[in-house]
């Protein structure tokens, strides 16, 4: 059985994995990272979206062995301590979730889509989230949340840059 090294939400694991084991099952069943749910078996719903080396992937469509030597961030690793990520906050503020099953995947996909366009239009958000299905919300509030999250993220990074520029006394 191949042995892989994988860092998930800041902790590094060494795991013996069957070649066919899916990343999502490794995360959920072996590492206890149940924040990432499964909604389909065809890579269509996006519920299982995580960041793999900084890029969003559907973890049901990645084999655990493919993630050897990589760095995975799940919804559980997004907050800084007790401070939620701006996108998590924005989903809450805009009531962009109901049952919440699609939410972890939505939030991961949303953050990823801002890499290309930090201030996306409604249309860009709608297209960018095409691979993530939600059955509860009708998407209106999700779209609003992503745009709000985007604004807050750019403010935060501007703030962080400013902070870094402040010379320490």
């Amino acid at each position, binding site marked *: 059985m191949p042995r892989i090294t994988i860092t998930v939400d800041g902790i590094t694991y060494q795991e013996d994995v069957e070649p066919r084991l899916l990343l999502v099952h490794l995360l959920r069943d072996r590492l206890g990272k149940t924040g990432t749910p499964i909604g389909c078996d*065809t890579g269509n719903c996006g*519920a299982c979206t995580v960041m793999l080396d900084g890029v969003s992937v559907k973890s049901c469509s990645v084999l655990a062995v493919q993630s050897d030597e990589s760095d995975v961030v799940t919804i559980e690793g997004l907050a800084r301590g007790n401070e939620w990520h701006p996108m998590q906050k924005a989903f809450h*503020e805009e*009531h962009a979730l109901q*049952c*919440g*099953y699609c939410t972890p995947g939505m939030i991961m996909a949303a953050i990823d889509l801002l890499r290309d366009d930090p201030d996306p239009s409604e249309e860009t958000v709608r297209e960018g989230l095409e691979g993530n299905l939600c*059955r509860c919300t009708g998407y209106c*509030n*999700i779209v609003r949340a992503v745009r709000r999250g985007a604004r807050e993220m750019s403010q935060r990074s501007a703030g962080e840059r400013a902070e870094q520029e402040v010379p320490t006394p």
Partner: protein
Amino acid sequence: MSEQLDAGMIAEQIAESDQLSRPTDAREIGRARRRKEDARLVTGRTTWTDNIQLPGMLYVAFLRSPMAHARITRVDTSAARTRPGVVAVYSGQDFADEQGSLPCAWPVTEDIVIPDHPPMAVNEVRYAGEAVACVVATDRYKAADALEAIEVDYEPLEAVVDMTEALTEGSPKVHESGNKAFTWKFAGGDIDAAFRDAPVVIDRTYVQQRLIPSAMEPRAVVATTDGETFTLYSATQIPHVLRVMLALTTGIPEHRLRVIAPDVGGGFGSKLQVTAEEVLGLLITRRLGKPVKWTESRSEGNLTVHHGRDQLQRISIAAERDGRIRGVRVDLLADMGAYLMLVTPGIPILGAFMYNGIYKMDAYDFTCTGVFTTKMPTDAYRGAGRPEATFAIERAVDELAHELGIDPIEVRRRNWITHEEFPYTTICGLTYDSGNYEAATDKALALFGYDKLRAEQADRRDRRDPVQLGIGVSTFTEMCGLAPSRVLGSLSYGAGGWEHSSVRMLPTGKVEVITGTSPHGQGHETAWSQIVADTLGVPFDDVSVLHGDTSISHKGMDTYGSRSLVVGGIAVLQACEKVKDKARQLAAHMLEASADDIEFAGGSFNVRGTGSGKTIQELALATFAAHDLPDGFEPGLDADATFDPDNFSFPHGTHLCAIEVDTETGESKIRSYVAVDDVGSVVNPLIVEGQVHGGIAQGIAQALFEEAVYDSEGNMLTTTMADYLIPSASDLPDFTTDRTETPATSNPLGVKGVGEAGTIASTPAVVNAIVDALRPYGVHDVRMPCTPERVWRTVAEAGETAWAGPPSAGDTTAWVGPTAAGDTTAWVGPTAAEGTESEGGDR
């Protein structure tokens, strides 16, 4: 130490700590509170059933029939048993003595046929996907692997996929007794008189295609036992009903069975069920003494989660030339699928009371035939019967308007119950307690820009623009808040419609609310906290809501049919009132005043006209210490309440859709969508809006995208999310939503329910818009889902010569807008040809 630490000391410590909360008089009801539930959901700390891991847990996988209809002649599980990791393999035969029939709790008629429905098939399979055998193994991959080693011999039998065919002489039989499950009739007024010599008769047949509810969380079950007691975790909407039903089905005594619905990822009716997998989970854990888990894959789910809709509706309207409706006749075929599940037969019956819509009429006649086919059973899906009914009447009323050349909104105005006429007893015998269709419609028209869009439509028609604009309206009402129990009883529904709540104040003044409703995304924890905060005058954050565990919320009727707030929320309110009454007695005692002189304001009981008072938190602490209580006063500040309303509630609304239809490609694009809903008083506008959005999306999905397709052999062709098209963000527009508020009179909060409104209203609004766009081509129906291919075909089939309107100059002004009285002004387009639809008299 121990003798010193008496209750009084604890009370003192609490009183001195900053734990004792303070009263508040902030208004919570009506406020757009962000949801409490969100914290765990956005951080991934949710307890979905599939997240539950118990020591020594085994995994179950089911072998499912690849055939729609076959006799099972042999099941050989021996090879599978030897596979790695396999603990046990069972066929239906192995459980033949143990597995009771899956229940049907809504026998709508006395002579209804309720076939035996074993959780695992024993002799015969009747739909593709029916469980035939199962493997229990040490991990999910091994369980799935071993399925391949089970050998089953099937002797194929003929499938029956189509309802009409199923009812024809000589059709293959799904069950020995034939393919008819029941015929249910209902009538009011003299229908023959209404149709006799009617100046106009519209007679249409609509297909309600079969839908797959597709909650995002697949079903999952975890069953465990300590040998004496059993616990079942299930992704269910109905833990309380499930517990009773499972006790009856498995023989496990009810008091030894605990059902837990942890966080549940959507339901929409699909988790209002007693499933084979829940029963078998318990039977397997009973045999093996080990915890077992089963999680459905999506493709398994599409085959085996109960489906929705699937009806063939013939609707006729008899009307006067001025558009006034005389009567409506409905003849319905409802596809039951292969078996009757929990409330399968009741779904079309719920709709029976809604085909009259918001309209006055003299007569109504309804017949429904429930038909067996070799497909997955149907059952509740968002709206359950009401979307189907609303679709038929709202489509047919549009046809009437078109036939008469009257604006569709004007036709509705001429028939609807006016604001002054409430309460109004309909031809179906329901008393609509309150409503204001004028207000909702006027608001919607204004938001939509109706007149402007009609002008643009006329222009596009004039130019014969290949992209036509369609405008669709639907006005609707529905019945929410199932109860009343008495009425449900008269409809042969197998349970009551009450709801239960307990409210208990803890020594520190915090409040725990136990509710019998079982949320799966509707935000009960937030809304119930708002009700409690207002009623008891405690801070919103001091309330926690417990639900979905039969050992905590010991009584309940669960969540479906938009009943939670209307029934369950009122039970919470009433329990709070009882707590307050009790607190008032104690306050009177402690303040040495008469209870009548105590007034309650801002969470504090004060003696009228004096400065002295006690906060409700102080009183809670005092009942805990119990040092000085009035005679006969039971310690504790808590109360139970059970609410059984005496009427349904009737939300209503007007939805408008503008759609651009490319007649050359068949593509439809929703340009704007406006919904004005009246759900009575609103506890949390944020949640209401969210529910409306989601509902609209699901209704649009039926109109444009979704259909569960079986081939003629009964194989399902839409088993994946690639084949069954749930709309994504890019398929839908932004919705404009607004409200009018006409409080319900049947409950003290004036609430009506909102969960299904959007779904009920949106499907006919969208299809009316598509048909409206295509009217000039002589089109008067497009079957759902109105996919590009179907729209294109419809236009193409109408043929080259089809362009019927506006045929000559001058006619383009035909739409005179909803307000004008000049109803008979000419819409000369395709009406002439359609005039032949009038057949009058009986059929």
